[in-house]
């Protein structure tokens, strides 16, 4: 997938896909670890997204802010896209940026990612520092639900 697609300003209608139920455990863990690398950058945005209801125009602004954050860091873009493909279980190269961002927010907020992080910690894949991010993230998902 080209970087242009990631960093473009497409405003297509967002149709989030649901859940990681069918994702193999190791793919879900790999995605969680890829996201963990950048979770500290993402948390403020995720926190802000929780406070903005789905239909409000500010949400688009926040998603663009995340896109901007990703644009600043190639490593972040690569990891984020790889994680999304693992979670979606399909090639996402034809999706728009808005689609991808909405998809990622949906994946992160559906509660199952919390389980994945918990498992990653219990099997020794992430340490205490990463766990702190996870706990903070869990706090966010609890607020949302």
């Amino acid at each position, binding site marked *: 997938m080209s970087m242009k697609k990631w960093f473009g300003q497409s405003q297509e209608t967002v149709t989030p896909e649901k859940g990681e139920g069918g994702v193999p455990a*190791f793919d879900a*863990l*790999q995605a969680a*670890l890829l996201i*963990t690398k950048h979770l500290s950058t993402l948390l403020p945005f995720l926190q802000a997204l929780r406070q903005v209801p789905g239909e409000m125009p500010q949400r688009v602004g926040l998603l663009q802010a995340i896109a901007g954050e990703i644009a600043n860091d190639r490593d972040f873009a690569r990891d984020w896209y790889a994680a999304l493909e693992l979670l979606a279980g399909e090639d996402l190269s034809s999706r728009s940026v808005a689609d991808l961002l909405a998809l990622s927010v949906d994946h992160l907020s559906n509660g199952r990612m919390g389980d994945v992080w918990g*498992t990653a910690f*219990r*099997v*020794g*894949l992430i340490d205490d520092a990463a766990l702190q991010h996870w706990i903070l993230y869990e706090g966010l998902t609890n607020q949302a639900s």
Partner: protein
Amino acid sequence: MDRSNGKHSQRSAEHSRRSQKQAAALGFEPVDYLSCLYDRGEAQVPLANGEVIALRRVGLGRHFQLQALGQEIKDVPLDERVAVLRAWLKAAGVDNPGALALSDLPAVVRAVKAINAPRGQLAWTAHSSTPDNEPEQVKPTDYPGRQLARIVDMLARHYGWSLSEIMELPPELALAHAQECVLADRRQREWQHYLSDIAWEYDKGSHMSRYKPLSPLPWEMAPVRRSYEPVPEWVKEKYYPKGVIIDPAEGRKEWEAAGPSG
């Protein structure tokens, strides 16, 4: 109560008391050879889909591989850890780790760790590790896995076992045999040293030759007793027992407890 069960529990209590005493004297929990020989260590982990994974304690080769991969999980970057975990589970005998559900993973990992946990130590392994604050010296002849290669070499030379036989040995058993090999080699060397001229020093004063033994292996010497040894407390003289003390073995006898001065 079943009498045989009672005797068994008495025996195991006695055994555990003896082990504790030995551990206290040595400064570490020693390997129990018979237990390692006859109790290989097995676990059955029920999975979410109703199936059961049967796990068995790995042999020497896989034991070293598990340790190396376990360390690697901590050392490699975050995005490479999942691949290492998969390899770790395969090394532990999980045939198809990719088929495990997320909810099954912690239980399987826990079971693998539990059945492959160290079962005591041996003098040469307990004393040969480099302290944390001391940098490990790397020699040009070193290579990853050399420690295992040396154990294989010792066991193959002494007992004539094949590589596959050695790799399947329970780890503590293999290490115990390797320690015996080191000690047997040592006795041989001491005997050769005893027969050589360099072991004898002529003392002009007594006109006799004096034997200069080889310095013992550091881990072969009497163990340094650590915190296990109770610190003796000096008891003040005024607290010493005085008067008549009855000794039931010899009948009534008068003892005047002498103080520390005698």
